[in-house]
């Protein structure tokens, strides 16, 4: 059913493709994911419109998950969209405008506890967003980001949803570190019961 919806709504032409032209997919957490390309006209209003709906429902915290600029997941080889292949500053420009318009919408509604976050720290957007989704503090085998310039724009650097406890992987040590190091608790259950 979702596949029909995806095809009927021109999903294929709105999503990122691989170098060979095939749709980029990711089988993760029991579902197959595709990725909207930032070079489409659709994405230039998609998050803003979604945010308005969330604001209407009383939700004031918005998290842009899986947008890990400038990590490798941002490559788009869809030549029909007219953007530079595969990366470019155009990606930053698009997302910067998206965040600005969400912030403007929140301001226009006088939302007191508005909180905008994205996955992974990046200096490119720290003037726009208030916090970052990060991983376990003890994952020292990963690259560690320290978004120092965040302090130019904000009094605090807050981090959320650290997978401090995750079904099957993260340990009690990770949970202890997340709590004591001041991260807002986040726990991933991936469709399983608690």
């Amino acid at each position, binding site marked *: 059913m979702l596949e029909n919806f995806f095809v009927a709504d021109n999903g294929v032409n709105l999503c990122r493709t691989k170098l060979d032209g095939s749709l980029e997919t990711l089988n993760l957490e029991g579902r197959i994911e595709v990725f909207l390309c930032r070079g489409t006209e659709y994405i230039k209003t998609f998050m803003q419109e979604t945010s308005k709906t969330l604001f209407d429902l009383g939700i004031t915290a918005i998290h842009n998950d899986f947008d890990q600029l400038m990590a490798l997941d941002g490559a788009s080889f869809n030549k029909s969209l007219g953007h530079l292949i595969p990366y470019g500053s155009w990606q930053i420009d698009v997302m910067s405008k998206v965040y600005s318009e969400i912030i403007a919408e929140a301001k226009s509604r006088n939302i007191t506890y508005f909180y905008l976050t994205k996955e992974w720290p990046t200096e490119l957007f720290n003037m726009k967003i208030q916090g970052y989704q990060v991983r376990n503090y003890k994952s020292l085998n990963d690259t560690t980001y320290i978004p120092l310039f965040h302090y130019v724009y904000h009094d605090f650097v807050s981090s959320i949803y650290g997978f401090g*406890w995750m079904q099957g992987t993260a340990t*009690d040590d990770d949970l*202890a570190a997340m709590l*004591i190091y*001041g991260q807002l608790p986040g726990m991933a259950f991936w469709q399983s019961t608690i």
Partner: protein
Amino acid sequence: MFSANAKNLLADYFKAMKNRAKAYLFYGRLLKPLIHSAPKTLINITWQDSIGNVSVFATNMLTTRTTVALKVPGATKKFLKIFNGNKLVSSTEVNGGENYNWEIPAWRLLYLIFF
């Protein structure tokens, strides 16, 4: 499912955040650690709140109690209060610059504050 240790930690955390911990874990500023030579089995961190009080949060990941030494900040006499969640565990007077031996139970979220 959460382990018994995880359940204890989360219960401690949420009680602590409704008590004094929010001033540190949420609005605090990180300081250099007061616990020197901490074993790898002790997660600890030193925070300062907006009015200058210093706090140390710690979890002992051993199955038994452990004792660590920490240096009391400053040079004057201070009141030291130790909390578990929203409970005051103990309080004592300490001298700035001296070492204090902190006995930490296994797998609880403990924090002490120097006033």
